[in-house]
């Protein structure tokens, strides 16, 4: 027998033993229904939002110093270049960014030089997140031709744009979109960090040490 058959047979054997000698054969639909019932009444098993309005809750979460995130509210896409240069200037960075193929980023404005791909030691890169999550202050990116995962991982400063209309209240609200099944779905919450040396918290372990959220709208 193949390892696969052996393992499945051993699991069934175990289930039989554990359930008094008979393996209750249940239809997949029944199993699915039981699984779904385990998620009934989500509000009883998840924290409530810091404030009922998801966008406001998201902003408040991002203000938590533990996350290591800064956030700017940007009036609209047209105001994005100005917000970006503002951030780069505050950090005394050149007006130079790694971007993806997303047309909304390649034309950030005359004063900003954009390029691809992101270099291993890139100073700053910018991505557009598909969603934000108010519960945790996370942003979500799905890998795609115009969404390189490495742009979110390699730079020292990662700028991420998210539209206020795309802020979801809870992690569970994002889970619905998992059915899109991208190769990579990454929920990013704050900047990279480690506590591996005597528990000291140090930012910028492997991923970005600085994360700046540009909240549009």
């Amino acid at each position, binding site marked *: 027998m193949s390892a696969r058959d052996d393992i499945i047979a051993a699991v069934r054997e175990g289930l039989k033993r554990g359930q008094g000698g008979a393996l209750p054969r249940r239809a997949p639909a029944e199993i699915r229904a039981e699984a779904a019932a385990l998620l009934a009444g989500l509000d009883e098993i998840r924290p409530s939002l810091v404030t009922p309005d998801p966008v406001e809750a998201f902003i408040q979460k991002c203000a938590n110093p533990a996350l290591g995130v800064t956030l700017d509210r940007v009036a609209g896409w047209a105001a994005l270049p100005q917000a970006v240069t503002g951030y780069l200037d505050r950090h005394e960075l050149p007006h130079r960014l790694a971007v993806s193929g997303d047309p909304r980023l390649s034309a950030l404005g005359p004063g900003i030089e954009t390029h691809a791909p992101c270099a291993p030691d890139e100073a700053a890169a910018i991505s557009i997140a598909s969603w934000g999550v108010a519960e945790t202050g996370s942003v979500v990116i799905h890998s795609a031709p115009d969404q390189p995962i490495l742009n979110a991982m390699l730079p020292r400063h990662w700028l991420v744009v998210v539209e206020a209309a795309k802020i979801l209240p809870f992690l569970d609200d994002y889970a619905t979109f998992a059915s899109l099944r991208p190769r990579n779905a990454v929920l990013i919450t704050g900047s990279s*960090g480690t506590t591996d*040396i005597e528990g000291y918290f140090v930012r910028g372990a492997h991923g970005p040490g600085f994360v700046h959220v540009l909240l549009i709208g």
Partner: protein
Amino acid sequence: MGAPEKSENFKQRAHDALADPNLKTAIERTTGTAETKRAAAIGAFPEFQAARVRGAAIKDHVIANLDHYLIEFERNATEAGAHVHWARDAKEAAAIVTRICTEAEAKIVTRAKSMLGEEIGLPHALEDAGIERVETDLAEHIIQLAHERPSHIIWPAMHRTREDVAELFFKDHQPPPDADDPASMVASARRVLREKFMAADVGISGANFLVADTGATCTVTNEGNAELSTTPPRIHIVTAGIEKLVPSTDHAMALLRLLVRSATGGEVTQYTTFHCGPKRVGDADGPEEMHIVLVDNGRSRMVGDEFRQMLRCIRCGACMNHCVVYRQIGGHAYGGTYPGPMGAVLTPVLDGLAASRDLPHACTLNGRCEEVCPVRIPLKTLLKAWRVRSWDSQQEVGAVRMGLGIWGFAARRPRLYHFGTRLALPVMRLFGKGGWIRKMPLAGGWTETRDLPKPAARSFMSQHAKYGNGGPK
């Protein structure tokens, strides 16, 4: 990497650990912080108890339908383009991974921390196959330089002080760190490992969850090393225990809330990533091949007995952070892959009871572990179950059986028992100084590495006889 110690000789290792004051300091710093942060996170999550009950129910549901979920996961992962492999035991699993690496002519392999990888002996297997293995989790990087095994499932280098790390990095990093403060050392590791991430041929990760209805595997990290290990290389290999399944992403989220709070006191990790098959046509980055190795290694056996409940474990580490024994002796003393209370339950499954019978006994049964366990594993009960099996299978040595026999005889005869204690206590008091006994004949095993509290001036029984239930007026 030193040869993994077997779980035999626990007493010797525990003795050595107790005699090492630096070890105790190092452990106390990290577990102390972890305990405080977890308490704060749970305090801010009033729904925690209800969430725990549900978390346990989700895992129980998965285990009760494990065959169904394994097949569903396999189907969906395959449909997404991943190759699913099955391994009956550790050896088979390590062989599958090394075969994929050698067939791909891999020279450098990056690894994102996975306890299952340790369990199947992957570090050794890769080295034996002549493949350069690069541990990318900072703590794993530290212990790789020190040729050690992890001593904790969340903080593998918990036993190393900052000075130790500085010494290792100054010796190994080219160029060396700018200074010996944690920030400079982390920056140095970032520099050194960045080159490896980009040069690796294969990236290996574990999985915190296997999502049945999408076929995705999920990793959680704070450093971002999993994403950097799995995106640039040509091949991504996942090794995961078969108990990691969850029905859907929604179920993963419910467990994620429990996992992160219990592990580090955060609400979510900085990076929570779902990996579903290899790079798609036109994708900007990602591996061309994805392999998933589903590992049994004793788990299917657990499905059929009381240890089934241990398959709920989401590897958060809270039980060890709150364990009085772990906090005294650290992780290495346990000898197996997994330390602390959960390790004491799992190691006899993995290494056999004969080789690890001391572990279930190295427990005060104070129950802190199961109070904090986010999926309500009755660790105390399971440890007791191993003790019973150990006793029944005559694993206990003659002296222990005899000692317990004598104690049992006396305990059933209260007069004899009280006579014995009346004789022994005054003698013990003679050896006490300032409330503690530092040395006493026949008690060397205890007093060599710690003091014994001096018995109270009057025993409880004698005071009770004098004052009755009300106590002294």
